[in-house]
């Protein structure tokens, strides 16, 4: 059991982070807090993906002596898996785009209701 927990500890932490972010998204009433929760949530998922890429004894996915003349055989096992990194680069971009749009909408809401608390906005009777 202990071994089981130790061998996957990165995943446990990502689950904890994801729960924190998820709670921030649906449990908090302040709109900016929701956006912060969203940020944490998405980062947690990125952490999960990067964790899948990790490889014991692997180094960065940038080929050493890449531009040299000697073309040695490249061992795939000695480099970290690059594919999740690529996916997560895209996901980070999506994250920041969503962040920008969310903040723009928050500002639009604030212009209209002059508050950021969801309950107070609902009192306005939309």
């Amino acid at each position, binding site marked *: 059991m202990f071994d*089981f927990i130790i*061998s*996957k*500890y*990165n*995943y*446990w932490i990502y*689950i*904890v982070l*994801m*729960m924190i972010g*998820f*709670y921030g998204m*649906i*449990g908090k009433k302040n709109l900016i807090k929701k956006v912060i929760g969203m940020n944490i949530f998405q980062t947690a998922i990125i952490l999960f993906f990067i*964790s*899948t*890429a*990790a*490889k*014991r*004894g*692997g180094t960065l*996915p*940038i*080929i*050493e002596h*890449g*531009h040299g003349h000697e*073309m040695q055989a*490249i061992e*795939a*096992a000695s*480099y970290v*898996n*690059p*594919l*999740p*990194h*690529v*996916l997560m*680069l*895209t996901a980070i*971009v*999506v994250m*920041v*785009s*969503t962040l*920008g*749009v969310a903040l*723009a*909408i928050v*500002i*639009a809401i604030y212009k209209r209701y002059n508050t950021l608390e969801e309950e107070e906005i609902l009192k306005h009777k939309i």
Partner: protein
Amino acid sequence: MRILALIAVIITGAILIYGTQDMPDWADPQSPASTHVSPRYIEKTLEETATPNAVTSVLADYRGYDTLGETTVIFTAGVCCILILRIRRRHRK
């Protein structure tokens, strides 16, 4: 409401923990994720794209269409911000 959120969060966490049990160990070099598709990227990146950085070659070439989508996403975000916020103020004179 807050209790409901907490319950939803805990259910999600429980499902995730349930799913994690069957995952390969962390940083296992023999996991399917590291053996099925990805080795080719590392082994062939120099040969096929003349780019030592495997991440760049995958990003812009092997999966270049994703990157086009990614750039479109950010472009969309920029135009969205303009669309939502920007107001043209009339000339006073």
